[in-house]
């Protein structure tokens, strides 16, 4: 019985401190994001990342969530993605591609450093994750393009049929 209480205490303290750690990053992050948006700096960042988002066939609005997830982590990236989705800036394709990229490569600083601390090679880790994420996202983007163009063809075919 004592054990369960101990575990409960551990989980309570641990989960609350995780939420606190998120709050102290996410609140300033959202304030900076809002300021950047209102002062048109976000446009500048998106334009800077345009070659990257173009390469993956994403809208330029995906650049900022991509950058945040890559540096800070999946939860923060997801937070920014959700806020951007609410404002209607991201398409379903953007969302899928962002998740494919961030699922394989996120929080690169933290995740790499914890392994470097136990003797793994940081550059091998970082390089492998980045390369794999780029390949996976690119492949998915090509596949989605095909899916979307097939859907379009179906629609056109329907239109032709109706006209006949």
């Amino acid at each position, binding site marked *: 019985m004592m054990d369960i209480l101990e575990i409960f205490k551990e*989980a309570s303290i*641990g989960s*609350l401190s995780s939420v606190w750690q*998120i709050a102290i990053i996410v609140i300033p992050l959202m*304030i900076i994001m809002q300021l950047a948006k209102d002062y048109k700096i976000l446009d500048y960042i998106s334009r800077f990342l345009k070659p990257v988002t173009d390469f993956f066939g994403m809208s330029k609005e995906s650049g900022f969530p991509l950058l945040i997830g890559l540096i800070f982590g999946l939860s923060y990236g997801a*937070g920014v993605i959700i806020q951007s989705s609410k404002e209607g800036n991201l398409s379903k394709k953007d969302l899928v591609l962002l998740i494919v990229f961030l699922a394989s490569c996120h929080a690169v600083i933290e995740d790499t450093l914890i392994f470097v601390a136990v003797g*793994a090679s940081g550059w091998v*880790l970082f390089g492998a994750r980045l390369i794999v994420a780029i390949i996976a996202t690119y492949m998915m983007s090509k596949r989605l393009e095909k899916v979307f163009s097939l859907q379009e063809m179906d629609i056109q075919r329907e239109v032709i049929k109706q006209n006949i």
Partner: protein
Amino acid sequence: MVFFNSVKEGAKKGLETTIMLGKIIIPVYFFITFLRHTPALDFIAKLFEPFMNFFNLPGEAAIVLVMGNFLNLYAAIGAIKALSLNPFEVTVIALMLSFSHSLFMETAVVKKLKVSASKVVLLRVSLMLGIGLLYGTLLGGLIK
């Protein structure tokens, strides 16, 4: 004032996001904390032990992969420290775990984005096994 309005709006969004993430994190954190205190993880690790050789890893490395995937990377690091692994083995494990870790927590967050959780887990686990095959099995085989 644009500035104060931006700060206010940003703080509101930050708080909303924190609450949204908190609602996911707290229950999952409770779940994995209880899970860690059960023999379940040791049991699962035992099942995987025979397969570790395939990646040129010792059988006992299974517990590191299980803890990293079911709990989080910090738990995995604790387990790595408890074993005596050489730098090559640590790099193989680190590579595998960087693609797939904290699956309960991170998948719960990703589900918030209305994508298929099982597909995301499948992608991550495949990448983990793929990189293990490439680096551990192939490169490890060449080094030997």
